[in-house]
């Protein structure tokens, strides 16, 4: 089967080379059949890579340890669910996932544009196949997922327990879908510049893909934050880690692109901005992919692999140089049709939006790549920490949220005073009301958080006003009841109202972020059973220890040999709040030097945090039981000495019993964060709004009437009555 996999990769590479040649030949010579053939190469590529991916998945699920990647990242004791996900936990497998997803999305994009944008699509095909070829070459020459060893080892190393969480299944495919979807607008952007067709058509064609990229990337980022928060023993959802930042940057430029596109469609302005943003998004997506796997920056995700660094740097340099060259040489086509009339206008606000988002991206870029920059400039590698990031991103985020409230209600071209009064009264009142409510509620110490709450209030007021006015307008025409009118309004103007819902979601998300970061209580506690301690207004008491043994009884179903934990009782002012049971799972290692018993629990320990999520606050606890305590290690050593490997598990049950009877003091990390739940709720609202905005209109199907001539004449007869 590995042979089939390897053959697939070579075939895929050949198809890429052919497709590039065919597309370019077809578009330069006007030979449609060659462009067509080039497009079909992309479909073929998708098919081939699907087979290759299936081969690898089957190898993982059937524990075929002849495959090096299976032996390195999976094992018989790894639960099946995680065996399937282990495919993309290695460099080789993740490259295959990337290439496969890109081929799928590219096929979809080219299929949907098969009858339009002939020449642009042909160039785009060549570029997409170029990327495909790049990743496949990396696999063929550097990191082949189908490499085998013979004879096959009997057991694999197992999936790193740190990755044995359900979110592990979804986060990489989601994020990779986001990254690969960013490449498609990039390819069409380059194609449009090459074909000299930067008109309204290509923006309409790629808008859907840019939006899908934005949506998937956003969901991937939120899922990563959620994973980090609810499952890693660190208790935070965002740490300005290099890899987190790498995925955020293309999302920011993507957001700017989607908004700025509206201005190009309505007023023919900001064309250079739009082309630059779409090219930047693609480049940042590739840079993000590169960052995760090159080991060039220190990060929690320390995926090494120096050999891949150089090809990526070359690719990124080519993308940047090519983009700049094309934009400069095509700048005559990108001239604005109109000029900015006033700084108080929708156009100006959208321009400001672009500036803030690009500014945010620049700050994050600078901070993320600072170790490389400082090394290049001063010879000394230095890095900046979260406080530096916060200092600059928080004010920018405040402005961004504020703009998201101003944008939907400000007038086009020039906002007059009367007009401003009419549109901004309600939002300002809402912000003021929020401020008063906060002050009345006794919240006054954290100005930045309060500013964010007021900005969010402004957004709710402005978006609410939009919905109310729109519904009212619709009722005036159609005379429907309010709920029906609202539904019809959203249905017929999905992009606008879906977008408004996204704005609400973002505001809610930032409220959660502001509250949970400014008003958090966190503490490191050392407790023995019966002890209790105060954290802020809460009292935490260690009730009793907990222990489970063998993978069969592992509560988290992740295959740990031994799990030690504690039951915590949390109360506030005498009232019981919640009971938490954090634990730490100890996994088997392959090290014979640890002894028969030691190796059963000597592998990577993984914290299983206890989280009680609520609407107003989250209570979070993680435990580090002292497995190194002499009382426990004594048992391990005795077991190593006296028990043969097949009976070593007996020592583990002694260990568990000893822990339950005389637990050593354990270290706890305890956090109470208000309104964290609203971050996830905000994310869901953003997702919902995004889906609404991208959903194709239903009436376009019904509009395919049998006789268009009749319809046209009817419409003209009615004076093209209201659409």
């Amino acid at each position, binding site marked *: 089967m590995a*042979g*089939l996999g390897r*053959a697939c990769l070579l*075939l895929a590479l050949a*198809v890429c080379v*052919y*497709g590039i040649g065919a597309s370019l030949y077809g578009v330069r010579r006007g*030979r*449609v*059949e*060659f462009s*067509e*053939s080039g497009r*079909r190469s992309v479909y*073929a590529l998708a*098919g*081939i890579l699907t*087979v290759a991916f299936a081969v690898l998945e089957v190898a993982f699920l059937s524990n075929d340890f002849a495959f090096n990647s299976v032996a390195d990242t999976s094992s018989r004791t790894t639960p099946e669910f995680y065996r399937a996900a282990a495919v993309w936990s290695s460099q080789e497998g993740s490259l295959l996932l990337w290439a496969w997803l890109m081929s799928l999305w590219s096929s979809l994009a080219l299929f949907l544009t098969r*009858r*339009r944008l*002939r020449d642009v699509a042909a160039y785009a095909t060549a570029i997409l196949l170029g990327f495909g070829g790049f990743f496949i070459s990396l696999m063929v020459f550097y990191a082949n997922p189908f490499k085998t060893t013979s004879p096959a080892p009997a057991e694999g190393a197992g999936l790193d327990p740190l990755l044995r969480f359900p979110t592990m299944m979804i986060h990489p495919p989601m994020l990779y879908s986001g990254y690969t979807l960013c490449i498609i607008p990039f390819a069409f952007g380059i194609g449009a510049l090459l074909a000299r067709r930067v008109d309204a*058509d290509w923006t309409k064609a790629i808008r859907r893909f840019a939006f899908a990229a934005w949506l998937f990337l956003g969901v991937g980022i939120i899922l990563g934050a959620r994973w980090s928060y609810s499952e890693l023993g660190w208790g935070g959802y965002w740490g300005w880690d290099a890899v987190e930042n790498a995925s955020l940057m293309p999302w920011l430029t993507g957001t700017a692109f989607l908004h700025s596109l509206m201005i190009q*469609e309505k007023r023919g302005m900001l064309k250079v901005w739009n082309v630059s943003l779409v090219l930047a998004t693609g480049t940042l997506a590739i840079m993000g992919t590169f960052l995760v796997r090159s080991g060039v920056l220190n990060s929690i995700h320390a995926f090494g692999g120096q050999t891949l660094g150089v090809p990526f740097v070359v690719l990124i340099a080519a993308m940047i140089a090519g983009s700049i060259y094309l934009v400069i040489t095509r700048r005559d086509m990108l001239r604005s049709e109109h000029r900015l009339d006033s700084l108080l206008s929708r156009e100006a606000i959208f321009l400001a939006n672009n500036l803030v988002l690009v500014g945010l991206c620049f700050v994050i870029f600078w901070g993320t790549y600072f170790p490389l920059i400082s090394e290049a400039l001063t010879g000394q590698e230095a890095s900046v920490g979260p406080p530096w990031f916060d200092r600059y991103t928080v004010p920018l985020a405040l402005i961004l949220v504020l703009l998201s409230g101003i944008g939907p*209600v*400000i*007038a*086009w*071209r020039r906002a*007059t005073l009367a*007009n401003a009064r*009419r*549109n901004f009264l309600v939002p300002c009142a809402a912000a003021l009301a929020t401020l008063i409510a906060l002050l009345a509620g006794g919240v006054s110490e954290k100005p930045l958080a309060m500013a964010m709450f007021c900005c969010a209030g402004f957004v709710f007021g402005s978006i609410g006003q939009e919905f109310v*006015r*729109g519904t009212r*307008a619709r009722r005036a*025409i*159609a005379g429907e009841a309010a709920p029906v009118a609202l539904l*019809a309004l959203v249905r017929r*103007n999905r992009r606008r109202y879906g977008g408004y819902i996204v704005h609400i979601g973002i505001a809610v998300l930032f409220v959660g972020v502001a509250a949970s970061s400014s008003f958090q209580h966190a503490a490191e506690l050392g407790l023995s059973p019966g002890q209790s301690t105060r954290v802020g207004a809460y009292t935490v008491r260690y009730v009793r220890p907990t222990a489970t043994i063998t993978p069969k009884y592992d509560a988290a179903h992740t295959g740990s040999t031994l799990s030690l934990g504690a039951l915590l009782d949390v109360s506030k002012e005498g009232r019981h709040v919640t009971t938490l049971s954090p634990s730490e799972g100890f996994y088997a290692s392959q090290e014979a030097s640890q002894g028969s018993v030691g190796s059963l629990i000597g592998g990577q320990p993984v914290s299983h945090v206890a989280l009680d999520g609520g609407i107003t606050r989250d209570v979070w606890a993680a435990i580090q039981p002292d497995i190194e305590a002499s009382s426990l290690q004594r048992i391990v050593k005795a077991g190593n000495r006296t028990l043969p490997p097949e009976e070593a598990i007996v020592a583990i049950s002694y260990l568990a019993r000893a822990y339950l009877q005389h637990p050593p003091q354990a270290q706890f990390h305890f956090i109470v964060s208000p309104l964290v739940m609203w971050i996830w709720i905000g994310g869901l609202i953003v997702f919902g709004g995004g889906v609404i905005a991208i959903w194709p209109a239903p*009436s*376009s199907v*019904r*509009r395919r*009437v*049998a*006789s*268009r*001539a*009749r*319809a*046209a004449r*009817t*419409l*003209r007869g*009615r*004076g*093209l*009555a*209201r*659409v």
Partner: protein
Amino acid sequence: MILALVLLGAVIAVVGAPLRAARRREGAAAGPASAPGHAGAEDDQGAGVSRDELEAARESKYREIRDAELDFQTGKLSREDFEAIDRELRADAIGILDALDALDALDEPGEPGEPDEDAAASGWDDQSPSGSDGRSP
């Protein structure tokens, strides 16, 4: 190995189909009358392209008209600006419908007189024909 060869065959079939089709067309056209046949094939494809592009343009033009109206009703467009934009967009829309008509005339010369309730009912069901502002294009 066999699977790999099957895959190779499938790929060649899929990727080579347009080339084979083009060659067949050229061969057939080269027989009785070369130029018209070949041109006809290209025209068909050309017309196919235009229809999809025109329909897409029509949909987005309708959306733009709706958008402008909504902007006016929610206070973001002044009356003069709205009227100017609305006029322009409706003129554009009629241009697109005319172009689609022309394509229809080419394709279906015998059908223009067909009555079609669908046309009246489908996209415009929730609009009153008189319109509250009695506007003319």
